[in-house]
């Protein structure tokens, strides 16, 4: 229901064909293009239902950790400690599993740990008004050190019961549990960010912190919540990865950090206003996952994969910038 209100002078026009559209659909078109190219080059191994399901499981870790990054970026901050947090979450889960604790605790303890540490990080940033970029980098270093101390620097794999591997390896009706967990989390956080007042306040702070403050929003509290959620999701990612692998390495989650932000930035190019958003992040992670999957099937060496993936991200950013400047 749109209401036309007193349009006596020239109303602002909605432009239907412009570079703006390109910024909204450019990434999507590129995504479809990538799928088409891989399907043509390798119809027998890439373009199969099995491989598609496989991809959803492969990207589930990246999607979950990137949801956290999306939330922190929605309040216009960065959390660079998510990789280290995932590593920590993984070793906590594996260590607990190895000492025979039930699966539910092995997931719950890392989640609560991530939530708590994230909240502390957020409090430092909002209370002392220090840069999140540097603070979370330092926090990541602290967590990394702690993880090494905790593990003695070695991989935890002995005495891990099969029950712990249940979540990471089971399929329900042909669909991996990991993929289902990912979909549920995507839906939940999409709902929070787009339909709830919490998300509205996050975006308001990210859009204009001062105006949000004037409008009576408790900036510090909402930033703390954002960092807590990010820490929680990162730690959960690590725990799920440990369950998938049946082991945990003290730097096992570190590699997610850059890809998570790549996914968020790709996702920001999907919608016109260019803000971090959950569905966009899912899409961005999917592109990164599909690229990795397809290039591996085509037996492209890893170093070349990195070059191609990096180039695609830069291209998407440029397209978005061109669209927004118009």
């Amino acid at each position: 229901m749109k209401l036309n209100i007193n349009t006596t002078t020239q109303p602002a026009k909605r432009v239907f064909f412009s570079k703006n559209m390109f910024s909204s659909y450019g990434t999507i078109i590129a995504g479809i293009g990538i799928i088409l190219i891989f399907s043509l080059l390798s119809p027998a191994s890439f373009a199969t239902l099995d491989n598609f399901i496989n991809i959803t499981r492969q990207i589930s870790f990246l999607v979950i950790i990137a949801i956290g990054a999306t939330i922190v970026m929605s309040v216009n901050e960065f959390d660079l400690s998510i990789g280290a947090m995932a590593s920590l979450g993984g070793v906590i889960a594996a260590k607990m599993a190895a000492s025979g604790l039930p699966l539910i605790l092995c997931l719950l303890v890392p989640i609560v740990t991530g939530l708590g540490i994230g909240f502390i990080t957020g409090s430092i940033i909002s209370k002392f008004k220090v840069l999140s970029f540097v603070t979370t980098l330092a926090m990541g270093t602290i967590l990394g050190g702690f993880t090494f101390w905790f593990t003695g620097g070695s991989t935890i794999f002995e005495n891990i019961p099969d029950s712990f591997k249940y979540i990471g390896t089971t399929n329900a009706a042909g669909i991996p549990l990991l993929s289902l967990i990912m979909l549920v989390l995507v839906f939940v956080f999409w709902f929070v960010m787009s339909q709830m007042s919490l998300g509205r306040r996050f975006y308001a702070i990210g859009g204009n912190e001062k105006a949000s403050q004037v409008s009576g929003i408790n900036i510090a509290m909402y930033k703390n919540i954002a960092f807590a959620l990010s820490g929680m999701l990162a730690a959960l990612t690590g725990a799920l990865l440990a369950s998938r692998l049946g082991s945990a390495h003290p730097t096992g989650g570190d590699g997610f950090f850059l890809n998570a932000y790549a996914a968020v930035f790709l996702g920001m190019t999907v919608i016109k206003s260019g803000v971090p958003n959950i569905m966009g992040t899912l899409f961005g992670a999917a592109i990164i996952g599909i690229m990795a999957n397809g290039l591996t099937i085509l037996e492209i060496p890893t170093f070349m994969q990195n070059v191609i993936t990096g180039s695609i991200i830069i291209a998407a950013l440029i397209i978005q910038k061109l669209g927004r400047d118009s």
Partner: protein
Amino acid sequence: MNLLTIEKLTKQFGGNTALNSIDLVIRPGEIHSLIGENGAGKSTLIKMITGVYQPSSGNIAWEGQTVQINSPKEAQNLGINVIHQDRQLVSYFTGLENLFLNHPYPKKKAWFGIDWKAMKREAQTLQEKWGMNLPLHLPVSAFAPAERTLLEILRTMMSESKLLILDEPTASLTDKESELLFSFIERLKLQGVAIIYISHRLEEVIRLSDRVTVLTGGKLTATLEQEQLSKELLISKMTGGQEIERKKQPQTNRKNNEALLKVRNLRTKDQTVSNVSFHLKKGEILGVYGLAGSGRTECMEAIYGLRKLESGTIWYQNQEITNASPQKSLGNGMVLIPENRHGDALIMKNTIRENMTLPILKSVTKHGIVQRNIEITKVQEEMKRFQLKAIHEDQPVSELSGGNQQKVVFAKGLLSNPDIYLCDEPTQAVDVMTRLEIHLFLKDQALQGKGIIYVSSDLHEILEVSDRVVVFSEGKTVAELDNAELQPNDILDICYRLQKEAL
């Protein structure tokens, strides 16, 4: 031959005329002051002379030749330099490095290294020529404010400068430092450099100027010769010389005379507000006037809870407020319409709906979920009430005109159903119609028993809307006047007299 001749210069922004057909002549070696209230068009005029803005119509001639100045760089090439109110210096560079900021460093021929000795020599010659003795080896952060100003002036003398524009150069200087600057300005004049001097301080203007040009509301009111100058004359010219039209009907409802808000001896931590006391009654519009830098905005922010207090008390309906914060203020029924609309009031890329309901999000939320239907109904009601010119409620506010953006700000304020409006320059950069609508809206709110604080640097506007006027100067409230027979001169007299005493 005249150095600079300006003929029929006009500048329009959208539908607003910022400068209307200005004729002005600057002679070589004269000190020509430019005075006028805030918003009279001084800075617009300067920006056209220095190539920041292009005139909408009219003619600029430099040394007899018609010129088009397309950029500040082109203005500098002609020999026009401006010293802005805020310093254009790199504070951790030394004075020497800052001096050469716009100039190529002298190089040693052999290996392209910087020839520091040549730099020092050049700087020393320049200092001697202009009779300065600045500690150029120190970083600028160690310079006194006056030294920074002098360094900037010296820098403009690195190239041949024929016209120097000084924008409020004494604003941050002490009395002694100002004297130092004045003696230097006299020296520049003797060397044949023309100076356009902009200041609120009329004593300085009278003392220094060969001629004074007065701007009022974008028009040139008068250009006066040195022997004519007097403070009374300048003030009367600045206020347009005429008495403003008084609307005799009672503007607002003040029968109750109950104090809604009282502040006493307010002092902020940053000292921008040092001693403010006033009260706001139910059903009145209280005008707040002060020259730039008088602490008006800062005081509003302190009352609203955006700026930390050092001492002083705020009572809201006889209840003392401690640790004020925007959340508390909104809860108490107080809204702030900030001066900086883009920076402090609106989230530009968000929609009208998202902006309007931000402070009242709780009231349209059930179990944490935003009830979009309720929200849209509320927003559409306000859009109708304020006759907002927009396509629909989901249009980003960045696409609206300035006036309509300000309406969104007011609608947002009204939605939280306040008893007190703190309006800081609410009609800044809005069109005439919207300005009128905002006045009518506020008068109507006052009639309903709300209290309104109306900060404006437009004296005529203050007198037009206010029941009473509080005058700010140097962070203090210095007068509280009943606006029955007030004239612009009365208020300006107070401002300028106090400024002189402060010097």
